[in-house]
């Protein structure tokens, strides 16, 4: 879809980048909302002014946040915080768009991981479509690669989908520092959030692999976070990384999505293998039926990176 009108819900790192880059992709932002306000203009908001206002005063406009849902748009971009279980308010935002026969593109993992079946049901009753490339691996085209191959030709997906945990493990290994020390460093650098639970406990990675397993199952089976076996990196002592290194290996937080389910756990991988990416990089390895292994790596997070995936999804929508 080209020349789309976008309503962007969420004005955090991702939402703001979508607003900023939309014009470059030939789209117009007709509404943007944060948790308490909205800016709306059917002819296109003044993106620079709105972003300035958000930076200066913390709000995007004078309208009620909910008003953005009823604005004129072709595509709703869901970039509010990821929540678990009922995945609200993100789920209702998407439902609202589909109910209006509009498309929805999600960066928010919650609805796709926790209520995949519900989403697909609403989509089936709507003229709108949903896309969610941005939910898995930021800028890396994973969902679209699976779609290109056909889910039936991919038997498993595995890899590193959390940049924060990967940064911590690779710094621990390279510098011989312990977990607490590296976590503090990551927080100073803005790589880890003040509350890093989602990242270091493996939940964020698990949500992404749950989404991949939903995509791979192609409707035959539905997965949620409850179906995943999840283990984080908080208990890994530096000595474990030393022992791994002595043996030409290292430890990475690896997720796997197969027809049997989803697991996320620290695993031993060859030091020089494709899965031992360093820093905040992400990698996904797809096991194909006839073409061996496919490795796709790149930046798995960040505002502009994730916005790139969102805007590519908008382009992929068919009118």
């Amino acid at each position, binding site marked *: 879809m080209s020349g789309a009108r976008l309503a962007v819900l969420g004005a955090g790192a991702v939402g703001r980048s979508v607003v900023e880059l939309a014009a470059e992709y030939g789209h117009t932002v007709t509404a943007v909302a944060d948790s308490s306000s909205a800016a709306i203009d059917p002819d296109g908001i003044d993106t620079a002014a709105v972003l300035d206002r958000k930076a200066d005063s913390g709000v995007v406009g004078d309208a009620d946040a909910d008003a953005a849902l009823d604005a004129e748009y072709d595509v709703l971009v869901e970039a509010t915080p990821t929540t678990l279980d009922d995945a609200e308010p993100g789920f209702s935002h998407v439902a609202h768009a589909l109910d209006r026969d509009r498309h929805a593109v999600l960066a928010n993992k919650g609805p796709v991981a926790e209520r995949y079946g519900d989403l697909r049901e609403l989509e089936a009753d709507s003229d709108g479509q949903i896309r969610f490339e941005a939910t898995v691996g930021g800028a890396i085209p994973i969902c679209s690669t699976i779609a290109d191959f056909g889910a039936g030709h991919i038997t498993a997906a595995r890899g590193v989908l959390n940049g924060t945990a990967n940064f911590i493990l690779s710094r621990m290994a390279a510098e011989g520092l312990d977990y607490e020390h590296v976590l503090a460093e990551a927080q100073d650098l803005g790589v880890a959030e003040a509350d890093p639970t989602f990242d270091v406990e493996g939940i964020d990675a698990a949500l992404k692999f749950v989404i991949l397993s939903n995509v791979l199952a192609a409707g035959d089976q539905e997965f949620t976070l409850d179906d995943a076996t999840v283990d984080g990196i908080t208990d890994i002592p530096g000595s474990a990384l030393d*022992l791994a290194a002595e043996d030409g*290996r290292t430890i990475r937080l690896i997720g796997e999505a197969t027809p049997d389910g989803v697991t996320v756990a*620290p695993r031993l991988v060859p030091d020089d293998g494709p899965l031992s990416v360093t820093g905040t990089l992400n990698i996904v390895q797809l096991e194909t039926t006839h073409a061996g292994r496919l490795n796709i790596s790149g930046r798995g997070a960040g505002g502009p990176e994730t916005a790139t995936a969102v805007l590519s999804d908008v382009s992929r929508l068919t009118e």
Partner: protein
Amino acid sequence: MSDTASEVQTHTIRLELVDEPGELLRALEPISEAGGNLMSIHHERGNVTPRGHIPVEVDVSCVPDRFERIVDSLREAGVNVIQAGAERYDEELVVLLVGHLVETDLSDTLQQVESCANASLTDLSLSAPRGNDESSSARVRLKTKSGTTEEALATLRDIAAEKDLHVIEPLTGDQP
């Protein structure tokens, strides 16, 4: 393959013996009792396994079904048979164990792994905590029977869970 069942062949049996007088003799008895013809014994005294056992290789010639009886009787006699004929311990498994390894009796843990997971320990590295109250880590290298690595891992997981230890598993089937 038609006549292999009756053909006399030479079979290699790998044993691990406790370093005590009379152990070798005790291990060889069942072989001759079961009608095996002892061809050679390879016994390197200086070479000990990480668990302090002495590896011994014995070549025996006999017909195949008698060979099975020999292996059975060795096992019945409590001899540690590492490899016998076609049953090869040729898959390697490397895992890290993390936790209070010493307090939970590491040697007992490993013994359980060897007996229950049907694996033989070929290498062990233990690393003391690097930080203050960190737990310790061990790298454990095991040989398992071909095709049983997943099973061995599952058993290992159970043994570790019992002692509240953490297993960092390799990514199976991972080749660079």
